[in-house]
């Protein structure tokens, strides 16, 4: 390899005495697409934030284009040619597409006013590279998240950076959009731009990356060409385990045993809502996991929202525990024994400033209180129990939840619902954006509760999770349930076929 574009060595960083990085290093060549992998809490985000000037390092050296640098702010990093697309969208949804693309770099007329014509032209050019055409003057927020994500990526790519950092760029993209993104990445690479690619989707790395750096517990534990490694080896290195051991255990913690489901707990018949759900029929029994499969936009989340009373039901019927139920909101749903872990942890899950304890007991509060007073001693006992049972890694239960890693936040939210001892657990992408270790733990927690008779409705974009986890899979297309697959016997190809087949063929097959 020629001289490195970036070389970080011996990086250390501690927060309030707690080391986040102990000995991290990273080396990226010019025009190289480099993957950075590791569990949540391994230090990937911290390392990136040091590189982009958000944090200052405590020790270590950063060489940028062969010269030692000390980037003190994101602005300086951008000036040096390092552009970042963060995991969370950092655009302004109320403003137009054009405004978002040129934000901070608006082309000017000689007297200082913004040259909107030039701005539109640049926006159009940026988007055309992705092969998408948008109304440039519409508010960005009116487009789906996936489109917004592509706009964010386009914006960063348009800044003529030498290094482009992508933190989980595909987490809200569907397959086709991912392909588009990969095309853009290859284009960038061809023009000599390096890309640092952070993703939990290991399969993607093999499609688009040249090399990979693996982190664990604040250290860089490996660096290799992508061609010289396998997915299993990567997982093993991230977890610090032996590859053979993992191979023996299977890739998810789910295993479909005998079908010994109990009574039907939830029964939907031709359910429709005011939000894209047109015709959903399914039943979930106690002790059974029912998967909801479908493409992005097929109405999986909308199905969950309608069942939980978040969207207005406009047609069909819903029975809970063999009785017709009118669920008008989350309170009704909770009272009926349901729990709903939303897919958007940040927006619909955590209350960032409250502690782990306060977040975990939020739904349980009425049962922890007498005459309006919270029984804090009992609360602490409950939380203590869940921290142990779910393996939540936190300094103590009074730590603000925002300081936890994504996987641990997710466990707290899972605990919030499990504490209610629900009879039906609706899980919307419970392991998305969560590292491999936490993912296995979360799956095994779910499996345990199912064994104890809890019914689960599982929404997942990961075929493995559905195939290995669900007893039955209901396939959705365009807001309708079109097919029901039963395990054992579901294979990836059968599932993909069911998801992708033409709705007309499927009508007869619908239950």
């Amino acid at each position, binding site marked *: 390899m020629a001289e490195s574009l970036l070389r970080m060595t011996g990086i250390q960083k501690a927060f*309030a005495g707690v080391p986040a990085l102990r000995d991290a290093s990273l080396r990226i060549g010019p025009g190289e697409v480099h993957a950075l992998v590791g569990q949540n809490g391994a230090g990937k985000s911290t390392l990136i934030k040091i590189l982009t000037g958000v944090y200052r390092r405590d020790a270590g050296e950063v060489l940028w284009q062969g010269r030692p640098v000390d980037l003190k702010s994101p602005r300086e990093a951008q000036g040096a040619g390092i552009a970042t697309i963060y995991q969370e969208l950092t655009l302004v949804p109320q403003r137009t597409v054009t405004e978002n693309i040129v934000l901070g770099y608006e082309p000017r007329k000689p007297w200082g006013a913004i040259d909107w014509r030039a701005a539109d032209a640049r926006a159009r050019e940026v988007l055309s590279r992705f092969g998408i055409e948008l109304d440039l003057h519409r508010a960005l927020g009116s487009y789906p998240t996936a489109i917004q994500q592509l706009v964010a990526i386009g914006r960063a790519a348009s800044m003529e950076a030498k290094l482009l950092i992508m933190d989980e760029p595909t987490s809200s993209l569907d397959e086709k959009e991912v392909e588009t993104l990969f095309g853009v990445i290859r284009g960038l690479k061809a023009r000599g731009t390096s890309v640092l690619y952070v993703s939990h989707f290991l399969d993607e790395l093999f499609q688009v990356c040249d090399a990979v750096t693996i982190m664990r517990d604040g250290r860089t534990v490996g660096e290799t060409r992508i061609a010289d490694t396998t997915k299993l080896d990567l997982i093993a290195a991230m977890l610090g385990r032996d590859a053979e051991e993992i191979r023996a255990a299977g890739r998810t913690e789910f295993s479909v045993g005998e079908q010994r489901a109990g009574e039907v707990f939830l029964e939907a018949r031709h359910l429709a809502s005011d939000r894209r759900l047109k015709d959903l029929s399914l039943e979930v029994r106690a002790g059974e996991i029912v998967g909801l499969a479908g493409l992005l936009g097929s109405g999986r989340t909308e199905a969950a929202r309608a069942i939980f009373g*978040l969207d207005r039901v406009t047609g069909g019927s819903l029975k809970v525990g063999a009785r017709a139920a009118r669920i008008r*909101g*989350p*309170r009704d*749903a*909770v009272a009926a024994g349901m729990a*709903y872990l*939303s897919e958007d942890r940040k*927006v*619909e*899950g*955590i*209350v*960032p*400033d*409250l*502690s782990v304890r*306060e977040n975990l007991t*939020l*739904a349980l*509060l*009425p049962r*922890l*209180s007498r005459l*309006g*007073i*919270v029984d*804090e*001693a*009992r*609360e*602490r*006992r409950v939380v*203590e*129990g869940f921290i142990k049972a779910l393996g939540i890694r936190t*300094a*103590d*239960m*009074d*730590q*603000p939840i925002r*300081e936890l890693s994504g996987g641990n936040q997710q466990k707290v939210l899972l605990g*919030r619902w499990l504490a209610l001892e629900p009879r039906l657990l609706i899980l919307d992408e419970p392991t998305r954006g969560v590292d491999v270790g936490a993912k296995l733990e979360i799956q095994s927690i779910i499996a345990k509760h199912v064994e104890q008779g809890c019914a689960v409705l599982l929404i997942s974009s990961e075929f493995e999770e559905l195939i290995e986890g669900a007893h039955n899979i209901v396939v959705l297309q365009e807001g309708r349930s079109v097919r029901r697959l039963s395990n054992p016997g579901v294979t990836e190809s059968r599932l993909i076929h069911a998801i992708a087949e033409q709705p007309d063929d499927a009508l007869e097959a619908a239950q």
Partner: protein
Amino acid sequence: MSAQNSLTGRGLGGVGEAPAPRRSRLNRRLLGLAAALLALVLLNVAMTPNFLQLQTLAVNVSQVAPVVIVALGMTLVIATGGVDLSVGAVMAVAGALAPLIFGSGWGVANPGLGLAAAFVGPLLVAAACGLFNGSLVSFLGVQPIIATLILFISGRGVALVLTNGNLQTFTNPSFTWLGTGRALGIPVMGWIALALALVVAVVVRKTIYGRYLLSVGGNERAASLAGTPVATVKIWTYLICSTLAGLAGLIVVAQNSASDAARIGNLMELDAIAAAVVGGAALSGGRAPILGTLLGALFIQLVGYTLVANGVPDEATFIVTAAIIVIAVWLQDSRRRT
């Protein structure tokens, strides 16, 4: 179960120790505020003539008590992510009503009942104002600043109509005791304000309402998904805020033995917001540092007093108050970035 018992022990111990990073951070701010307050007191002891007189304390307490009472409610509203501009107007309405009730023919004929009604009636009206504000915010989704602007404007108008736009003086020693009475040398209303601060602080920390309040302000959608009765929590919060404002209005009227609808509670909304912000409340919601609000109100009061007592013109105190708020906001902002 022995395991459970040991957990209990630990749990109870934890209540007292509470080594929470969040709390310690907030405590640091409170300590800073308390230290600033103490420094100001010491400065006054050295500089201001007759500062260590009971009379000085009484004057300050009677000036700050209504602000504290209003600011307590304001802190709760701010914790939901809202703001209540109508508190001054609600003070005026409540204050204008009281003399009308005990001074009416019926009130004069039944002094005991009249006095009770003069307390309860205006507070109920104030509560109704809060119910109105809260309903607009919760059910119609009106932004708090607009929703409370309605009563901000119309409330004072109602008060002026009630009093025909005149200054209404009265003589009713039982009622004026609320504003002028003393216990242990300190104005009664000072004790009332202190007691209310304690009650509200306990409510925030120990009750389910307090927890809901912080979660609604911290992330409304998450709270709602977890089954929190968001609308109810908000309505109660506006209701509490207005009722406290009503009480403050009664106190001010009692203090002056006169109700002046045009002036009661004038600019009180800003004083209350200032106290809350200096005390560490975040306008984005999710935090309700009641003790901070109390200290914030005291601090602003004492700064004003210090300046006036040392011959600085009244008008200049506004500028200093503004500077304090700027510093408080800056502290909050820098804290968030680190």
